[in-house]
């Protein structure tokens, strides 16, 4: 069965590479299929195109291979997710590291965002004598968009880089190989636990961020309009629908999964020593932020179809 799977993977790789470059394909046949060989064999696939002088082909090779590697990493995650004994202790530890330890930063950012957004919106609403709409306006902005986005961008920086660097350094110091030769599944222990932890923690942090942001907004509103907390929250939630909550939850789940997956993918496949660790941490942040913005656009578009 294991062999059948390897054959399937090979077939997909061959298709990818044959589309990209005939010479890349030739090198692929020489290259081994083992994951540990890839960092060393892949540059040759790319270099072959370079020597041919086909710059575009070389880049298409690289992009298709990245897509393929990423896809197989995700498929492997779901395969390992339902296989064997779950590592509950490690998941809880990672939730603590990712979720609980992010609370101070999320609190500060969320509070200031809510307060500043309220301050910035007031003059515009005052022109129409509509400052009473402030709680509704701020709550819609925070719940629908700002809270999931701010939380995920902060987490991409704090958590994504940390996962990328940690797994990257484990890779280059052979700690991941050590797990493998100890008959322990490193993918299940390192990747599955971290992706589950980010997928659980980011939505919780996101709703926490929304709450703290509304508290920041309330502080500004109460100082200027002298309202009380019950009136503020009543007004704030009047315009919030289940669709808003659901879309915020789906966004946060998607962002959490993305941050964990990208961080793990970059770290797990790091190579070239300490330089590779730095590159893994950096590219984990850049790629997860890029994907988060794409997901934001896609989810907002889909949500708007249901409004």
């Amino acid at each position, binding site marked *: 069965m*294991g062999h059948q799977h390897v054959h399937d993977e090979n077939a997909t790789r061959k298709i990818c590479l044959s589309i990209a470059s005939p010479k890349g394909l030739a090198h692929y046949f020489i290259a081994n299929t083992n994951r*540990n060989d890839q960092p060393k064999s892949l540059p040759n696939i790319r270099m072959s195109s370079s020597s041919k002088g086909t710059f575009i082909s070389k880049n298409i090779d690289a992009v298709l291979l990245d897509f393929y590697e990423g896809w197989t990493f995700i498929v492997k995650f779901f395969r390992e997710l339902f296989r064997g004994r779950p590592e509950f202790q490690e998941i809880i530890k990672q939730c603590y590291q990712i979720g609980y330890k992010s609370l101070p930063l999320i609190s500060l950012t969320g509070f200031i965002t809510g307060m500043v957004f309220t301050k910035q919106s007031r003059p515009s609403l005052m022109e129409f004598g509509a400052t009473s709409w402030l709680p509704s306006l701020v709550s819609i902005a925070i719940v629908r968009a700002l809270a999931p986005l701010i939380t995920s961008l902060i987490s991409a920086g704090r958590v994504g880089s940390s996962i990328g660097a940690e797994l990257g350094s*484990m890779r280059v*110091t*052979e*700690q991941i190989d050590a797990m*493998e*030769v*100890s008959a*322990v599944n490193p993918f299940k222990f390192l990747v599955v636990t971290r992706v589950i932890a980010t997928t659980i923690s980011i939505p919780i942090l996101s709703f926490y961020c929304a709450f703290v942001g509304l508290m920041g907004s309330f502080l500004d509103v109460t100082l200027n309009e002298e309202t009380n907390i019950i009136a503020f929250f009543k007004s704030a939630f009047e315009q919030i629908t289940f669709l808003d909550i659901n879309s915020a939850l789906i966004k946060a789940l998607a962002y959490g999964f993305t941050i964990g997956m990208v961080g793990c993918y970059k770290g797990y496949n790091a190579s070239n020593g300490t330089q590779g660790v730095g590159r893994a941490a950096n590219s984990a942040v850049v790629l997860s932020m890029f994907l988060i913005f794409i997901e934001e656009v896609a989810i907002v578009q889909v949500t708007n179809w249901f409004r």
Partner: protein
Amino acid sequence: MKSNPEIETVSGFEGGNVISIRDLYKSFGDLHVLRGVNLEVEKGQNVVVLGRSGTGKSVLIKIISGLLKPDRGSVKVLGQEVGDLDEKELRELRKRIGFSFQNSALYDSMTVRENLEFPLVRNVSNLSRKEINSSVEEVLESVGLLSAINQSPAELSGGQRKRIGIARTLIMNPEIMLYDEPTAGLDPTTCIEINQLINEVKEKYNTSSILITHDLTCAKMTGDRLAMLLDGKFVQQGTFEEVFSSDDERIKSFYDYNFTENQV
């Protein structure tokens, strides 16, 4: 008596060998690292693989442990063809193999105790806390570092890290030990201590081993048999005296270089 490595490995191939490697090839792109390697390790034997840096010594033991796949050739470990094993079968085989890494590869985020418990609790089911503790303490005692049980790897010296790395593999009672440069980066006294430990492990745990090194003191102290890897092939196998009485200039220069280096 000088031995011909290629003939020696082919004769008596299967009987009593825990590791049998035949006609092994491995390349990384255009770099041909192993070009037709043959090697056999008998039960209870320490085989030292010597060679210059970058000759594929570490690649060889990574292939044996299934971390790398060969381009072609046969690698039989404990009677099983490593390349034919699926993931689950390979994991079962790895429970019987210990791998000591060059830089020890201890898990930085765990204490020494957790490092040792890590493979044990995941590979042996239904162990009580008392049994886990006694296994950890016993194996730490055998490497002389029981006092370091609650320390983190960052607090240990290079020699201590090597010992803990070996202890972590011993906790699974392996039948085969693979040592990757066990004395690299250590002072001469610690090197001798590690060499003694390797011999003690062989006696106490009845292991068969492959040691990768370019340290001739280590090779002489620990090796029952030496194999010299040059240009992707074993050019000479035998005892220390047999290997270094060779007329091959490359072996002579390897010996001279080590000798000169040690004198300096």
